[in-house]
């Protein structure tokens, strides 16, 4: 993977306190452009909260966040999204009543400002057709393109989540447990997919599946109790004593 010198995402002393509980505690994180960065750590370490902070869903108690040098601290989710930072959700989050195609159209439209055109017909959305087909094919949902998402199986929904993130053509992608609840085959396919789309983009993801982390990440940050425990290349981190005791345990080194 090519990592240029530029810093895509940086946090400085980022802290979030929920009623006295420090969920994220003075985290300094630096993700270089083009890198695939994994965030691991025990349950409750603050990974999802960190994602929420990075995408504006939660506002930080203190500290700063910059995206390609621009300060986005305290910006709202849609503002962060429009700066090229897209996220997926740990708990599947789709528009139940729209078809896969419509959802992807919606995602594509988001960047164009067409959304405010209440005097135009929705056929306008047809212009995204080619791109929609491409994206759906990429995640293997083409045959189900016209099925409302509410009727899809779980794995299919996860795939659609990814398609939505991709549709935003983001510079930085934040994927929260992209393979959670997937069968082995789907996991491998997803790894492939993420690897493919990661080209030329910056990816930060959370996953408990070490197989996924190992295959994708070129850098890994281990969080514990809201603090950075270790950071480094995967091979280095997984050998780290502290990581083994705090997170991996003796049983499973998959």
């Amino acid at each position, binding site marked *: 993977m090519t990592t240029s010198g530029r810093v895509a995402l940086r946090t400085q002393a980022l802290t979030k306190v929920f009623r006295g509980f420090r969920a994220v505690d003075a985290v300094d994180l630096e993700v270089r452009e083009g890198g695939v960065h994994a965030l691991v750590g025990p349950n409750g370490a603050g990974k*999802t909260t960190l994602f*929420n902070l990075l995408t504006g*869903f*939660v506002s930080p108690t203190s500290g700063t966040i910059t995206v390609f040098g621009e300060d986005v601290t305290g910006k709202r*989710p849609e503002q962060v999204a429009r700066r090229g930072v897209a996220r997926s*959700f*740990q*708990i599947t989050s789709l528009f139940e009543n729209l078809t896969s195609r419509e959802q992807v159209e919606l995602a594509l439209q988001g960047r164009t400002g067409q959304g405010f055109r209440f005097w135009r017909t929705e056929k306008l959305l047809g212009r995204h057709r080619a791109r929609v087909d491409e994206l759906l094919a990429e995640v293997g949902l083409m045959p189900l393109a016209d099925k409302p998402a509410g009727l899809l199986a779980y794995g299919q929904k996860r795939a659609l989540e990814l398609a939505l993130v991709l549709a935003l053509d983001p510079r930085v992608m934040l994927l929260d447990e992209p393979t959670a609840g997937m069968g082995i085959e789907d996991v491998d396919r997803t790894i492939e997919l993420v690897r493919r789309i990661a080209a030329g983009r910056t990816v930060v993801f959370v996953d408990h599946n070490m197989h996924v982390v190992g295959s994708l990440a070129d850098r890994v940050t281990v969080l514990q109790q809201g603090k950075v425990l270790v950071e480094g290349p995967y091979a280095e981190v997984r050998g780290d004593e502290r990581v083994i005791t705090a997170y991996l345990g003796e049983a499973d080194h998959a």
Partner: protein
Amino acid sequence: MNAVLQYAVQGLAAGSFYALAALGLAVIFGVLGVVNFAHGAFYMLGAVATAVLLDTLGLTLWWSLLVVPALMFVFGVVVERLLVRWLLRLDPLYNFLLTFGLTLVLVELVKQKYGVSGLPYQPPAILQGRVDLAGVVLPRYQLFVFLFSVTICVLVWLLMTRTRIGMIVRASTEKPELARALGINVGRWVTPVFGFGVALAGLAGVLAAPFRAITADMGNNFVIILFAVVVIGGLGSIVGAVAAGFLVGLVEAFGQAYAPTFAQILIFVLMALIILVRPAGLFGREEAAT
């Protein structure tokens, strides 16, 4: 200074009605997720029942304070069984609309039965007149209303937060399916809680009988103010409902004293301000995004 104290007491007395009724609203919302539009109508029924009981059975206020909430509880149970329960699984807006319809029906029925001019009521002599407290002369009845409602509010709060019943009740509301799978007979709890909330509205009505016009329409405006109260306090927050109830009473009293033309608008302005700076209300929980 004296006047200011008087206004304060008057505001707290007015707030007592809001606090008690809003408490009922909050309990029902907290447990059933129902915003009960008929709360004003239940308040009205409480007052009407008080007057009718005095007229027919000679029940004094003291008895009414016990009997009417009990009757309203039963009535609430019937309403829940017959109507509200069928919509609990659905969007809360449906129950909002249902209780809106119910309000129209109840108000109209009372009009047909008891007319529109109102019902007479004679309060007990001991609550008449005034007491002198350190130079401030206060109507006895207002003091009584205030103390009584504060006591009830504290008791309810303890019940909901400190007892197993409160816990079960909260769980049954939030995820009824799961609660059943954990061995809790959910159906058994929802109904009495609704009845309980209705009884609180009825209790506010009893307190209103000696103090306010007992007419079929007495709850119409009341319920709107109640909504403002719960928005200010944070819907679903018991403490919030009570605190905001008293706050709104005070705002109303001082508004009427110093800016009468704007007294009614003032409450809504307060609400707008709260929404601006604290959308979840004074005591409301922030809605977390996952």
